[in-house]
């Protein structure tokens, strides 16, 4: 069974590294934990405190504004179904979790993508790191995150962020790099500073692609919700996990369906963001 020839104790090394981090950076992670907990609880309160119909009206209005009456109508039906299946609270917990994770992932990954687009050296580092983060099975993140942050929604959020970073950075880099080089040259030729070219030319023209990346971030975050449920993040993930361990078919179907409805809503809304930008550019 054991490897007789030679054994490289990569796992052991990682463990010692992690121990060192826990011993020395514990204060830092307490801060991280407090920050995310605040952020999450605040958003969660906004979504769960008002009566469910008020939240539905707001979400449907958002859908109407961004896309049109069809999506608004669909959203109302979908969310009413979630409520009817008694998954409303869970769905709102999950929505809060997805939003917190997505916002943080966007804040980290978009500037990273911009830096990678501007410098080949940064790109050379960011790309493999992103590949690593995305291909490592998501469950693996849970171990250090749990050890560092304990049980609850925060480890779920952090694991989700790590998992969802890659598309944000990658799409942003791609978007900025594929802006027509002659237009960028025009900015330079008229004496614009690099920051100004970034702000007035590269980001606006890359916006549809960046938006597609943000859409990916949100969808990946949602897919992580179930996994996060295993570490006590609650929400729909918790319900799915409970259904799985208890072999509870009705609960499984109802919570699973709610995830699907939430996913469709988030996808359509963010996809329309990227399209409406494109329209302005045309």
């Amino acid at each position, binding site marked *: 069974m054991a490897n007789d020839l030679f054994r490289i104790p990569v796992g052991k090394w990682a463990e010692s590294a992690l121990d060192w981090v826990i011993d020395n950076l514990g204060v830092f992670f307490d801060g991280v934990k407090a920050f995310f907990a605040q952020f999450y609880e605040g958003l969660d309160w906004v979504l769960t405190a008002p009566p469910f119909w008020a939240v539905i009206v707001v979400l449907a209005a958002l859908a109407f504004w961004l896309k049109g009456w069809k999506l608004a109508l669909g959203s109302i039906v979908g969310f009413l179904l979630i409520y009817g299946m008694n998954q409303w609270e869970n769905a709102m917990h999950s929505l809060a979790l997805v939003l917190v994770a997505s916002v943080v992932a966007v804040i980290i990954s978009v500037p990273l993508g911009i830096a990678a687009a501007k410098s080949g050296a940064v790109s050379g580092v960011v790309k493999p790191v992103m590949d690593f983060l995305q291909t490592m099975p998501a469950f693996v993140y849970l171990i250090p995150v749990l050890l560092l942050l304990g049980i609850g929604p925060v480890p779920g959020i952090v694991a989700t962020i790590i998992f969802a970073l890659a598309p944000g950075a990658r799409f942003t880099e791609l978007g900025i790099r594929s802006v*027509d080089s002659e237009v960028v040259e*025009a900015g330079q*030729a*008229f004496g614009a500073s690099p920051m100004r070219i970034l702000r007035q030319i590269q980001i606006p023209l890359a916006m549809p692609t960046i938006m597609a990346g943000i859409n990916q971030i949100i969808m990946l975050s949602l897919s992580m919700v179930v996994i996060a449920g295993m570490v006590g993040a609650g929400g729909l993930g918790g319900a799915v996990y409970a259904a799985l361990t208890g072999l509870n078919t009705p609960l499984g179907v109802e919570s699973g369906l709610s995830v699907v409805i939430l996913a469709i809503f988030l996808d359509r809304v963010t996809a329309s963001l990227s399209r409406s930008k494109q329209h302005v550019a045309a």
Partner: protein
Amino acid sequence: MNSITGPPSPALRVTNAFKVFGRKPQEAVRALKDGKSRKDVAPMGTAAVIDASFEVKPGEIFVVMGLSGSGKSTLIRMLNGLLPMTSGSVHVGDTDISKISGKRLRQVRQKSVSMVFQHFALLPHRTVLENAAYALEIQGVGKKKRTEQATKMLETVGLTGWGDKYPGQLSGGMQQRVGLARALCSETDILLMDEAFSALDPLIRRDMQEQLASLQADLGKTIIFITHDLNEAMFLGDRIAVMRDGEIVQIGTPDEILTNPATEYVASFVRDVDRTRVLTAGSVMENPRAVVSISGGARAALLTMRQQQTSGAFVIDRHRNFRGIVTDREVMALVDGAGSDLTEILTRADDAVSTETALNDLFGRSVESNTPLPVVDEKGRLVGAVARATLLAALGNVPSSTDAIQIVVPGQTAGSDDGSQRPEIFTQEPSGEAGGTL
């Protein structure tokens, strides 16, 4: 190399400029200075510009001409520092571009050197007016003032009323006018134009050349214009530099280049111009004068011919397809006989030549015909006409292509894609109601 130093100091002076792309550019330059050839240094990098030296006088149009890959774009991008040169210097006025960077270089670009791009390079998410005002915006000019100036400049290039459209809504020719307006708005003395008209249709392209020449006469800009088109170079250039494989092989006036080519390479370039083989019908054609639509009938045709003072007219159908020629005598007879259908008297429906036809193939037909030869595109649409005088002029040393069209002809403007919005400079008198509705 070129030491014509007139009394006014040059607007731009390039001295022994080298540009090598690749891993060991400095080594490559040293080798080139030691007399090694471009091929010899290939392992060290691509020598795109080799030992370029020239001066451009204020108010001059300096054309750089050469085949694809000869280093024209690289050269022009060194003039405003978009590409740092490997060795040598470029003086804009008294400032050495090769010695400055960052903020000071941006200052030079804002104040002294602007640029027009081959594919227009407009900001697609901004309106035409905002695009025209872009250079001023970067210079920090206030919104009110820059809007005012940009509006005036759009007027100058013939785009009055298009300010709140987006670039994507404009034709290529119009977009390039916005590009020109943007560069002119910056009020720099020097204008760099890298194949600025190469992406445009032939007739629009000639319009733009005309307009540039007339703007230059008004504003006195110093223009460095890149092209690989000989006719364009000959028409626009006060002086022309011919490039080959990164080297400038000759600098001279169009006349000098034509009559005294410095090398066999230049000679082969030039041989093409005075031999009619290379000039095509498309490159010398003018806007057809008298054009009538087949559905317009005989009286309308008569009216058009009278207005144009021609004795014949081209007949086209609704799709602008060339259908034939009618002469005044026959139309008159038709009208006398109370007929109106032009199809009865159409002649020479097969006489149209394609835009690709070489000039020397036109002579025979032209001699036989007493009306200009109709020129059609690959779809059979009438796009121009070649008169006998045009052909004779093309035989001379200086190509007539662009001169010919200077004679502004009132009448139909067939073949122009943005015909509905002709800027003032090319304004044609409003034609009578008769004639082709194009």
